[in-house]
């Protein structure tokens, strides 16, 4: 039986530094998980010192990302963001009114609880074969198992009961809503980014970088909602100047950060 030593802050990991546990770097974006990109973008936006631990090991809720911070172990990107904002007295939404904060909550839930599932189905179920050739080097048996579990979970959620065409249309509806809300603005709520931009960038970056070309939404993003595509580039330039060091460039090199 393996003995798991409880880690000690100050000994096993530094104090006042978020230890961000997340999946290994992705081929074309810093992660294949929209939630890992969301949380890491938040840490950069809020200037919170952090260190990465790249592994497939999941955290206390059985998912990734998760963190260790000054003795606390936490999971769930949104709960982590609330926790750190409270602890460090940060408020990335300080310029927003109460109604705007609630609208931001709605968009965050839309992308994290709906767009997310559409992307999973496109990647691991409808276009699994192409994903194996282009965006993952995991063995095909592992990818088959991921697809089986995704189908099972998506069925429980409800979205997995729809046809592929219905899911394609729902994903386009989400991207259209984001584009229409963004309009001419630089970020979702104006000239400066707010917390919800982390969640939106996290999930939309998966459509832009980490689904096979055969996925209709990928072309839809470029051709039909170009302002949203440009917004992704803007978030990338603003918070990820080291983007090239955080990707494997199609598995041709190691990510150095």
């Amino acid at each position, binding site marked *: 039986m393996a003995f798991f030593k409880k880690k000690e802050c100050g000994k096993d990991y530094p104090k006042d530094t978020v230890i961000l546990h997340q999946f290994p770097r992705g081929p074309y974006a810093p992660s294949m998980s929209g939630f890992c990109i969301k949380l890491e973008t938040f840490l950069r936006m809020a200037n919170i010192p952090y260190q990465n631990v790249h592994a497939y090991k999941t955290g206390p809720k059985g998912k990734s990302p998760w963190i260790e911070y000054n003795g606390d172990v936490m999971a*769930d990107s949104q709960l982590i963001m609330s926790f750190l904002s409270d602890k460090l007295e940060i408020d990335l939404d300080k310029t927003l009114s109460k109604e705007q904060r609630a609208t931001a909550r709605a968009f965050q*839930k*839309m992308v994290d*609880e709906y767009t997310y599932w559409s992307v999973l189905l496109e990647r691991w179920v409808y276009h699994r074969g192409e994903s194996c050739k282009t965006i993952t080097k995991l063995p095909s048996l592992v990818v088959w198992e991921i697809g089986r579990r995704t189908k099972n979970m998506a069925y429980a959620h409800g979205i997995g*009961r729809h046809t592929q065409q*219905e899911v394609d249309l729902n994903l386009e509806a*989400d991207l*259209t809503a984001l584009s229409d809300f963004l309009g001419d603005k630089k970020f979702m709520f104006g000239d400066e980014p707010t917390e919800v931009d982390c969640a939106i960038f996290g999930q939309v970056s998966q459509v832009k970088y980490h689904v096979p070309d055969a996925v209709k939404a990928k072309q839809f993003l470029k051709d039909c909602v170009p302002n949203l595509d440009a917004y992704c580039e803007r978030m990338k330039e603003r918070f990820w100047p080291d983007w090239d060091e955080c990707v494997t460039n199609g598995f041709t090199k190691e990510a150095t950060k």
Partner: protein
Amino acid sequence: MENIKLFCTTNWINITAGLAISVTTIIILRKIRNRPKKRVCGIDYPADTVILHQFERGKTAPSVGHFVMKLETFLRVNKITYQSDFNFRNGPKGKVPWIEYNGTTMGDSHMIIEMLNKEFKIDMDSHLSEYEKAVAWAIQKWIEEYMYWLNVHTRWVILTSEMFEEGLANFSSALKPLIRRKALDMTFKVGIGRHSNSEVHDLMVNDLRKFSQLLGNKNYIMGDKMAVVDCAAFGILSQIRWCTPSKCPGTKLLHSGELSNVVSYMDRIKNTYWPDWESLTADK
């Protein structure tokens, strides 16, 4: 007798296989015999009438189904002729509500509404700009994909016993452990089931407060006129207010008077489109 015993002991493998095959065949034949007959419009159900398949009426609200309340509110707001059919099983997507209409069978409240919009040339969102439609879509997704699951987990995992004690469940309490296990399986896969009870309660309370801030002094979410998102909001919120046990902090909050704008909003929709609320929820 001795011969029978000898026969059984020497042929037990064949006997067991034979019994297993017989039982399986009987089960399959019964399933084939009992499968629902394809219904014919004009014979099995009237033409030009939406047949709304839903759960049996609830004791504290017309339905214990979040999306049933959403869809039935939509039908009433748009004065679409419909009939309720309480045979809710065997819907095309395995969920409730589902409809039959002029030979078409459909599941999923959103897709049903889209079909009915085309059929009856209606559009509850026609007064909204593209920007406002985007906001309404996001709010609808928040309520249907998050608040809904918070309430499902609260009702059927955290407070399952209370659902039966307060007479809010529509079926036998013998099914309680099965329902709880199935609900937890679903909410765990969705993600919300991985949170602690107190986290789920806090999330619901915070979301209700945020919804109240979003609604503000407006009559409806997007202004003075109802939109589809209001049908969705009424569907989900009606369950939290009237069909979730009183121990639920979200339910307590709605009854506390703190979110008076949300309560007035719900009463506005209930009084306008559900004048028969009391008769539909008469104690059975």
